[in-house]
């Protein structure tokens, strides 16, 4: 088993564990959504993830940092879930685990996850229109999960399974780079 396969296996195992925790809540979908948002929020800060993934820092200290950040902003279940992942040294896989949890939650409802990255928080109307557009585009029932990602610069990037629909300014600049390079 190579490193990437091992990482994928870890992600699947921890995602299943978190989905089991969320499934025990009254609204599993909402709990999974909160876990997704919290994990993506932490993953968006490179230095924080670097620190949380540092093997020289004790697990208790890392879990303390997560508690400090999330307490008051997320449910106890979400805080405990994040603390668990960071405590077992999987901080660098937090984003991937969150995405997998969202997929499991969507799958339970017969939907697929559309992970949408945009530099701003999308409004409810935008999410609704985007859901409709993506559902029509992919032919599947789509559950949009948004992630605020400043590196997108403008526009948005939607990832549905292996399909990527990139309408970001960053993508336009990348195309320009390829043309000029």
């Amino acid at each position, binding site marked *: 088993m190579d490193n990437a396969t091992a990482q994928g296996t870890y992600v699947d195992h921890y995602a299943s564990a978190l989905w089991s925790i969320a499934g025990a809540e009254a609204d599993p979908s909402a709990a999974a959504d909160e876990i997704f948002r919290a994990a993506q929020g932490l993953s968006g800060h490179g230095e924080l993830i670097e620190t949380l993934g540092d093997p020289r820092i004790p697990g208790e200290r890392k879990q303390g940092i997560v508690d400090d950040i999330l307490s008051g902003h997320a449910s106890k279940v979400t805080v405990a879930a994040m603390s668990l992942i960071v405590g077992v040294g999987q901080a660098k896989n937090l984003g991937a685990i969150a995405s997998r949890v969202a997929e499991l939650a969507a799958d339970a409802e017969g939907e697929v996850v559309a992970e949408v990255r*945009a*530099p*701003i928080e*999308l*409004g409810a109307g*935008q999410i609704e*229109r*985007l859901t*409709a*557009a*993506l559902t*029509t*585009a992919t032919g599947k029932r789509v559950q949009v999960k948004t992630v605020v990602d*400043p590196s997108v*610069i*403008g*526009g*948005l990037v*939607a990832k549905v399974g292996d399909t990527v*629909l990139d*309408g970001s*300014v*960053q993508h336009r*600049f990348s195309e*320009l*780079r390829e043309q*000029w*390079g």
Partner: protein
Amino acid sequence: MNLAWTVILAQEAEQISEEGSSGAALLLPAPEELIAGIIAFVIVFAVAWKYALPALNATLEKRQAAVRTDLEAAEKAKVEAESLLVDYRAQVAGAKDEASDIVAEARDAGEAVKADIIARAEVEADQIRARAGEEIVSERERAASDLRRQVADLSINVAERVVGSTLDAEAQSDLVDRYIDELGGVQ
């Protein structure tokens, strides 16, 4: 000289005759001795003529024949030697010609090799020059391409920063709406 001796003998004879007939008798042999001497001489002469002379002649003839043979052999040897000398001179001359030919051939071969080496070196030099020229052109193009890429990267990086800083929330929202519309329009 003989005249002097004759005179001397005559003077002696006159002196002797003057001294008396007894002196001359001392000099002249007795007739019987003279006859015996003549007979002995004839016998010796005859024996010599009969036996010694043929042997002497045979020896002389043998010697003459040997000398002739030697002379002939010497003459033959001389002829052979002259023939050999001629042959030797011819061989020497031939060898000199051959040596000259060999030297000339070697010189020609050397010149040919030299010309070949020079020609090959010129071809290689041309190839090296051509390759160097191509490499220079290639390097120049690569450098220009790198420069273009770097300028493009720098420009795009600056543009990204400028765009990122100038897009306010409303502009961001407009961009999102526009893309959602594009997605809807695609359907």
